[in-house]
């Protein structure tokens, strides 16, 4: 390994309850709710409307700008309406409501053919057409990521199989059950960027996945599997790049600033399906887990499936009051309703009882420094929170509030239970709003 361990970080209990549970498909629901925003950037523009019949995999909304993504119907049936529905982000956003006719009558998929000889442009177009976005949670449109401006040549591509969030096992299961799809996806990305070198980063708490991927890459001398120390947030883009290459993304910069590109392993499998089978992104693996579900599972779920059905598939909630989190326990979003749908970035659904996720009132900062030692970005979270609480946003900006990656390491270890990430997030929003105002 050329790189090195990042500074800071924490080690929460891993609790990979569903690590040994094979992925099984969840029955397709009678109705799906498909948001027009399942990616970062402009919402997609509908190309069908209420009353239209649609087939499985049919384009129903097209990307409406440079940073945007296509959306395809995850079922066959009839579009009932397009209206605001509860979105995992925590508010109502426009969604297709599609009644499933149960036939899974699919459009004809057109594979690209022999991809190793295909032009990068054609590959990117296939990925764009399939509506692929970053499936680790950030949901950045993949075709944009694969088209860096010419002044930023990419020399290193890293597959992110770190899965450092506690509880989540969807990437782990994917690597165990479909290693060839992940590897082929990585090789397609290498082809797009004209590289013969690539890494697959996996945390050492998944020795089976490391061994299997190492076996698979044996025939591909350009690809190296990195077994990374178990420390959160090892899977954060900046920390992963640092671990693989020792390169530090400059403040405010992107991976391409240091010639790197990171793709989640789920995204890579989707890229492979798009190129080799011509399949659009209409389903994904979701870990449904937590102490407050009866049976933690890994499910293959159609996009648009309400999370209520996922909880039922995991045996239902075992407590009357729970925290239902879209994503992992460190960065996931607590849901205010169980009606929100699975979207492209839904890597996990975590159900925690009050015992695992107690809401504790914040006490005074005792300056213990746990947040400073834990911050993988070298920030002083307690100072940032204090500045934001005092409305001193200019100072908060000077102290690097915008560099925060919101990983939660600081708040995790704070003995005073101060909601550090919450304050910092508020500070970031205020600073950005002020910048816009000029």
């Amino acid at each position, binding site marked *: 390994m050329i790189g090195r361990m990042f500074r800071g970080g924490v080690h929460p209990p891993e609790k990979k309850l569903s690590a040994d549970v094979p992925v099984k498909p969840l029955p397709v629901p009678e109705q799906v709710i498909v948001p027009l925003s399942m990616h970062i950037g402009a919402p997609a523009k509908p190309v069908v409307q209420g009353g239209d019949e649609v087939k499985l995999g049919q384009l129903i909304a097209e990307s409406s700008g440079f940073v945007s993504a296509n959306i395809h119907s995850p079922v066959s049936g009839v579009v009932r309406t397009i209206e605001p529905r509860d979105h995992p982000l925590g508010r109502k956003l426009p969604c297709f409501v599609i009644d499933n006719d149960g036939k899974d009558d699919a459009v004809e998929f057109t594979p690209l053919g022999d991809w190793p000889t295909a032009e990068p442009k054609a590959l990117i177009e296939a990925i764009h057409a399939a509506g692929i976005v970053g499936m680790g949670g950030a949901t950045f449109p993949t075709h944009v990521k694969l088209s860096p401006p010419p002044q930023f040549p990419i020399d290193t591509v890293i597959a992110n199989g770190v899965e450092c969030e506690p509880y989540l096992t969807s990437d782990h299961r994917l690597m165990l059950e479909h290693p060839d799809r992940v590897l082929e996806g990585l090789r397609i990305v290498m082809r797009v960027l004209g590289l013969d070198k690539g890494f697959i980063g996996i945390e050492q708490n998944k020795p089976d996945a490391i061994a299997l991927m190492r076996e698979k890459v044996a025939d591909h001398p350009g690809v190296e599997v990195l077994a990374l120390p178990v420390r959160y947030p090892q899977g954060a883009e900046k920390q992963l790049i640092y671990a693989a290459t020792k390169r530090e993304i*400059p403040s405010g910069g992107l991976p391409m600033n240091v010639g790197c590109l990171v793709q989640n392993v789920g995204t890579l499998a989707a890229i492979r399906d798009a190129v080799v089978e011509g399949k659009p992104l209409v389903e994904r693996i979701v870990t449904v887990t937590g102490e407050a579900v009866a049976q933690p599972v890994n499910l293959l779920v159609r996009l648009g499936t309400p999370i209520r059905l996922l909880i039922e598939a995991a045996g239902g909630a075992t407590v009357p009051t729970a925290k239902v989190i879209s994503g992992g326990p460190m960065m996931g979003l*607590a849901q205010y309703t169980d009606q929100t749908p699975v979207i492209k970035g839904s890597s996990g659904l975590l159900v925690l009882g009050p015992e695992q996720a107690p809401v*504790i009132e914040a006490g005074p900062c*005792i300056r213990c420094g746990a947040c*400073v030692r834990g911050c993988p970005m070298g920030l002083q979270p307690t100072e940032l929170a204090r500045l934001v609480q005092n409305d001193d946003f200019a100072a908060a900006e000077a102290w690097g509030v915008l560099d925060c990656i919101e990983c939660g390491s600081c708040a995790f270890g704070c003995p005073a239970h101060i909601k550090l990430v919450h304050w910092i997030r508020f500070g970031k929003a205020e600073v950005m709003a002020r910048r816009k105002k000029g």
Partner: protein
Amino acid sequence: MNERLKLIVSSSPHVHSPDSIPRVMWTVVAMLVPATLVSVYFFGLPALLTVALSMIGCVVVEALLAKLFKKPIVIRDGAAAVTGILLALNLPANAPWWMILIGCVVAIGLGKMVYGGLGQNIFNPALVARVFLLISFPVQMTSWPAPKPLLGSAATDAVTAATPLGMVKEAAMLGKPIGSLDLPGWTDMAVGYMGGSLGEISAIALLLGALFLLYKGYITWHTPVSFIGSVVVLGQVFHWINPDLYPSGSFHLVAGGLLLGALFMATDMVTSPITGKGQLIFGLGCGVITVVIRLWGGYPEGVSFAILLMNAFVPIIDRYTVPKKFGFTPPEKGEEEAA
């Protein structure tokens, strides 16, 4: 699903380490128990009563003041108990009860509550009280009971004993060489068989407690290492220059309140720098001031003054030891930074 699941919504992260303020504070109290037990062994029941009165006193004073200031009463967080036990460990074992209570009022009132309570104070509350008492009641604060072990016979029949540092200071003033003094042996001092404040006497017991705090991550190595290291090294250097006037580094290590101060007082989270680098500077400052007072000051012991003085420098130390942020390392070999 007939019964709707009730949902809790809050901002991430949703899980938390088991650490909490009470857990930190009560662990510190527990790790001072070995030193307390040694003092009970050497000074008997009065030592235990002093500790008990001081802890209860601090907790009660905090509760009363919180009520007076109309603030929430948070005595269960253990912070007042920590102040109480530390104050007791900084007093002679036979300190009069009224003096202990005055100490409690000063520690909690002037040391902490006037600043706004836990986390807001600049100076270590227990040390504020100790120095207040030392200046106000010099006689009571410097008449140390002679150690009389529970098992075995006492070395002397004397009722009071000077501290080793006090003996050295007196010799220096009288112009007597240190070699002519009847100082306790090094092993006796390390175990705690000497005159001194309740909690400072046993180097070994203090070290045991501190090692556990280090293991738990409630203190870091930086302050103790630079504080103790600078005292020992500086002390030894002067010992080489004039062994008749200046005691050795190893004597400095075990003779007075250095270990209690460096392991449990200077490491107080609230009143010490937040980064490791800052703590190294802080410890070094404490060490230098301690040696200066011990060798040339009017008081035989300088640990309390040193820590309080350095407490005042914490904001400025913090200001100049801000950690390097990720993403601010310039690219290697003069590569142009891509903006």
